[in-house]
């Protein structure tokens, strides 16, 4: 096809396709963050409480933006949960830009872990 590509969108669809292949279902953004959170937490449990799920998402966001120096890992507590320190303010962006910013970091993350 002779097309000007929206390369971010194309790469995002490719990632979605690979996740569908692996999990049999197209994940939404929340599910992808949950997956990243579990990957960073390093322990797959049968059940996470609602609060723990929120913590996993928080871990995901911090881990993603850590790649660009917005956060650093401060410590891991006795229960194995990582805690992050924010190093600089996140950039001020429009809503669509924020979504793209997050997508770019997610794509980078999956690339770095060799998915």
């Amino acid at each position, binding site marked *: *096809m*002779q*097309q*000007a*590509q*929206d*390369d*971010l969108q194309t790469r995002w*669809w490719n990632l979605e396709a690979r996740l569908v292949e692996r999990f049999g279902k197209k994940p939404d953004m929340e599910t992808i963050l949950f997956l990243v959170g579990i990957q960073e937490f390093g322990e797959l449990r049968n059940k996470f409480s609602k609060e723990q799920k929120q913590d996993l998402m928080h871990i995901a966001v911090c881990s993603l933006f850590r790649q*660009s120096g917005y956060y650093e890992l401060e410590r891991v507590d006795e229960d194995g949960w990582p805690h992050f320190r924010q190093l600089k303010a996140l*950039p*001020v*962006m*429009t809503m*669509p*830009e924020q979504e*793209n*910013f997050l997508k*770019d970091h997610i794509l*980078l993350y999956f690339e770095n872990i060799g998915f």
Partner: protein
Amino acid sequence: MRFGISLLVLAVITIYSCNPRLAGGLRKHDLHKDVEMITTRGTIILRLSDSTPLHSGNFRTLVKKGYYDSILFHRVIRRFMIQAGDPNSKHATAGASLGDGGPAYTVPAEFRTFLFHKRGALAAAREGDDVNPQKASSGSQFYIVQGKVFSPAGLDSIEQFRLKGRKIPEDQRAVYQSLGGAPHLDQGYTVFGEVIRGMDVVDSIAAAPTSGRPNDRPLQEIRILKMRLINR
């Protein structure tokens, strides 16, 4: 009488020597003309760049041949671009996948740092990098940028993630923050002109409901009725 004929011959010779025939059926005067594109949604006037002679010459040649007449805008993505130039679209059935048609040649890339994907830019479509590492342009398919407005941080993010660290010049950043565009395409696709009149028509086409991915074809046909070279 003989004197009269001689004068006539002289006048004809003078006219044609001032406007010699060039390659592709063009004449010298054609190189200074704009392009009028009459579509089913209205008229767009395009000005081609003198800095991209291969693309501008090829486009003018096709316009003069009537190559684009009756062609569809076959790929439309709101807040991004509208694309046309596939000759297979002239008689395409509803819903058919388009975007592979064109002449049997490509046009070598003509990237110019000062020609960028601002709103209204006219640029050449092409095959992807995997099969086209030289980034050569399609022989006929083109797109017009509708684009979107960026924040400074949004442009920083584009530089970091999508331009592989290439910095967008300050004057172009200002345009992307005010007028808008599609900066991630810069220096990857050849820009060879711009809309000088009729952006409302571009916006109207871009707003058309489409089939969505992957073809993004408008559900209702939007056709180029006629393209022609006009004096500036």
